[in-house]
């Protein structure tokens, strides 16, 4: 993999030379730093899909403001940094540091009289271990009633043709609330077109607000799991995201920031007779107003509703009643597990973070490609040739291309064969055990044996004259993937 990053750096260096002194020069220098920075993951989706809530859950802190109405109106970047700081980047390129205060953890930024439409993005730097692996980008929702707000997200994720700027995000978490036609339209737009065709490689679908699917029934997450699984097999969805996982963002966010005070408050409800508790929790309105003898003020009740949602309160009180958990730490663990965020983190690791070099190179090469087309100048042809050579020959890109071809239905074959192929080329994660569909604790020898067997299998398939042309091309990529695994296993032994 380092080979790819080095190649990309070399191509970039050449481009910086060629474009030195032009207005594009500065941007190229910034691209170089991008290769060394954490992966940029955008959290996107329709309006009110729960993007900010999920972002908070991933960071493990309540940073992004969330509200019942439309909330995020400016694209906000959350990056690791030494100091707590909020900077506004203006449409004219100016940067301005802003004051802010934290209201129960949430960052409340004072725009200081700046008109919001003049601010292209807010950059929040925050010392956080989680942000060291990835810079997270919170986006306003698509489908907002305010046209300009929605346009910002479009601009962020799919720079228009005339604009030669690179796509700012390397990967995207796309929040879906049940399948909606706009979601797919949006996802399509996000995928850049050059490195490979419509591409599920850099996107994971999240069935968000999963706790709301059953409208509060305790088995909501099971329903959500089924729906997510079905969505993930939908041929259209498969062409745009790698997979779909259900996440109850609010539950995850609250679990990450749960306090003992809250647990004590919930315990009062848990200690009620079951029938009384059920009657109280029948509706959100009832919980907010009934049973004064409970000893919770209306403000406390409303805060609990905001923090947990009705589903969360039902779930947490039932967990406390059955003594599955007693302390905040224990309850947080149960809620986190139920929220599905653990599975999402695992996917982020195997699909994005393990592949960060490829994804970052991809963003940079795409930017260079766009630039050389849009503003050719002496020497830029050599840069374009570099880019094309890397894109066409680098094995990780070939894997991505085959993967999207399978997903798009261009490579056909028996489902089991395609499934095997998809895994081998890293479709379910770039790690060796994932490629070979073995568990993580499998021994070295077993991995080698499996890789050798796969190599043999695909060599035969590639050489078989009856194999269709497209599958044979894909098979040669799979062979290289197997060889790569064997050589890596050889090094590590």
């Amino acid at each position: 993999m380092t080979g790819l990053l080095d190649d990309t750096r070399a191509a970039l260096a050449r481009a910086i030379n060629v474009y030195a002194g032009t207005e594009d020069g500065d941007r190229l220098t910034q691209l170089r730093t991008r290769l060394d920075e954490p992966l940029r993951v955008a959290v996107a989706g329709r309006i009110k899909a729960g993007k900010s809530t999920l972002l908070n859950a991933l960071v493990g802190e309540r940073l992004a403001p969330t509200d019942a109405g439309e909330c995020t109106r400016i694209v906000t970047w959350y990056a690791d940094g030494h100091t707590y700081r909020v900077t506004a980047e203006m449409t004219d390129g100016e940067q301005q540091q802003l004051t802010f205060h934290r209201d129960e953890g949430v960052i409340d930024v004072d725009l200081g009289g700046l008109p919001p439409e003049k601010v292209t993005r807010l950059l929040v730097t925050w010392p956080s271990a989680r942000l060291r692996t990835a810079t997270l980008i919170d986006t306003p929702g698509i489908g907002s009633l305010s046209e300009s707000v929605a346009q910002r997200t479009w601009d962020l994720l799919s720079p228009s043709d005339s604009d030669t700027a690179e796509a700012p995000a390397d990967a995207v978490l796309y929040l879906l609330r049940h399948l909606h036609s706009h979601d797919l339209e949006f996802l399509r737009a996000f995928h850049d077109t050059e490195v490979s065709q419509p591409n599920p490689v850099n996107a994971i679908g999240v069935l968000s607000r999963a706790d709301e699917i059953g409208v509060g029934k305790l088995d909501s997450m099971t329903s959500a799991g089924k729906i997510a699984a079905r969505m993930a097999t939908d041929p259209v969805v498969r062409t745009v995201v790698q997979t779909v996982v259900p996440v109850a963002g609010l539950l995850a966010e609250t679990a990450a920031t749960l306090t003992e005070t809250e647990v004590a408050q919930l315990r009062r409800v848990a200690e009620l007779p079951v029938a009384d508790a059920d009657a109280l929790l029948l509706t959100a309105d009832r919980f907010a107003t009934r049973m004064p003898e409970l000893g919770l003020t209306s403000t406390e009740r409303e805060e609990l509703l905001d923090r947990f949602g009705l589903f969360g309160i039902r779930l947490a009180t039932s967990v406390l009643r059955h003594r599955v958990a007693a302390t905040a730490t224990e309850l947080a663990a149960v809620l986190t597990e139920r929220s599905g965020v653990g599975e999402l983190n695992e996917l982020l690791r195997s699909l994005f973070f393990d592949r960060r070099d490829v994804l970052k190179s991809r963003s940079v090469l795409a930017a260079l490609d766009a630039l050389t087309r849009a503003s050719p100048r002496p020497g830029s042809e050599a840069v374009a040739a570099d880019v094309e050579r890397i894109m066409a020959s680098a094995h990780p890109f070939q894997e991505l291309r085959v993967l999207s071809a399978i997903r798009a239905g261009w490579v056909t074959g028996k489902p089991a064969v395609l499934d095997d192929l998809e895994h081998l080329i890293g479709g379910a994660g770039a790690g060796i055990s994932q490629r070979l569909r073995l568990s993580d604790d499998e021994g070295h020898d077993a991995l080698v044996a499996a890789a050798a067997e796969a190599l043999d299998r695909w060599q035969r398939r590639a050489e078989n004259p009856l194999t269709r042309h497209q599958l044979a091309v894909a098979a040669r990529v799979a062979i290289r993937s197997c060889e790569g695994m064997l050589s890596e296993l050889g090094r590590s032994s």
Partner: protein
Amino acid sequence: MAMASQPAGKEAVARATAAVAAGIKACEAYDRPDLAKRLERAATSLAEPSVPVVVVGEFKQGKSSLVNALVGANICPVDDDVATAIPTSVSYGEQQRAELIFEGEPPAREPIDLGDVRRWVVESDPVTAAVEPEPQDTNRGRPVGAEVTLPRKLLSGGLTLVDTPGVGGLGSAHAAASLAAASMADALVFVTDASQELTASERDFLIKARNLCSAVVCVLTKTDFYPRWRTIAELNAKHLRDLGDPPIIPVSSTLRSQAAATGDTALNAESGFPELVTFLTAQVGGAAAQRRAATAAGEVATACTQIEAQFEAERSALDNPKQAKRVVAELTEAKERASALKSAAAKWSQTLTDGVTDLTSDIEHDLRGRIRTVLQEASDAIDESDPADTWHEMEAWLEARVAHELIENYTMLRDRAIELSERVGEHFREASGGVLDAIAVRNPEPMLAGAKIDHKIELERMKVGKQAMVALKSAYGGAIMFVMLGTLTGISLGPIALGIGLVMGRKGLRDEKKRQRNARQSQAKNAVRRYCDEVSFVAQKDSRDTIRRIQRELRDYYTGLADEFNTSNAAALQRANEAAARTKSERTKRLSDIDAEMARLKQLREHAMAVTS
């Protein structure tokens, strides 16, 4: 106001029913079975009203739960995952009954078990569909709707709830079909849940709905689950302020169902449903009842006018025996005019025939123009992009774009049809007034004070201008609605064979990509053209059928009236001849009889006029 119009509507219907019954008696007494028949039809429409209310909303907003909770039965399928795929109507019936309606001409019906409705109306799951193939008959098409009747008090006023599929989104051709269907309903219930404020596509839909539907109500569902539903309701109210400010009714279907199961009235009140029920029965049902009553009253008045005309002719003949000959002569002459009213050469008939021809060609021309614009835009868009990347966006865009044009085209059809029926009505009225005057054969001497009657049939009262809508609505409650709802769902752009090969290796990567891209672009254009052709074909057939229905209904209506005039004329002629033969004492007696009859008719007419006051 909401509470007041309920009894007003009911009372008006009661008054109209009484007036119609009296009218039927009078028609029978005066030996006019043709008029009695017309009034019997009016009586039927009063007794068996149909008030369709269409429930529309984005995917998974709780439309089916709402309908179930309203009628207190598990009719429409509610599931966390699968969604309603075909429309289901629920109306009043003394027996629980369910029928499936299949596509076809005429649509076939097949009774099914009430419990099986859900199996038919959900989106077919590819997994189970493979295991259990749908019983497909080659003779009948795909199911386009399900009709359920239930013995529920709520529905007894004629309310018919139609649960529509939310599939495809509000911007799809399918949504356009729902909207067209809803434009003929008495109200549109727009369902949105309390999880978030209205989205842009929901608002767009409401803007269109507002122009097409007489009454719109926005129902905010799932208030039990979302603590902030009040905030959402306020935000929605703000978004709707400039859209005629439709009422927003927050409800919880869960609470309503639970209340129904336990008979808990307090819980029912908490569910917010009583307000919705009041809106549907009082506001929507009340307005519909008022309209029905007014129509029936107009029919009674028309019948009175015709009978009165006969009596007047007789009286003129009786009053002055010297005149009798003239009266007979004039009536004989009027006969020609009355039969001319019936003939194809009558002005109203000409207006109708010409108008329908013009309307058909104008609507088709308009649609063609619109589709051509869409095709051009699509082709430009395809030239600028690679369908491999943009095809899906293209599909969504095209559907929404075509839907928009179809709605515009349909709106034009509707407006023009109303205009046409107004013109036909106007021409009929002009001609018929003269005919009725001729039938009445006024005595040249001044009439008794107060006996002067204006021989204009009460067409204004019947709002005959809306006859086109009446024509459509009369057939609407049944299969036609489902067909309208379903016609455009069957058409889809479908995937195009993108024909993309894997290209590996450095050489020619760019050229090969370009070649493939060109191939994809031409494929995409073909697919778009096919889609537009298919949509035009279906839409054209739909609008032709609609126009034909309007034409038939208008023609039958006015021909029927003209027939009645002829009968009136014949009766008047007969009586005038009789009058000439009477002795003086007979004449005096008959005159006072006629005055008494006229007074009775006047009273009946006044009753009819008072129905909606």
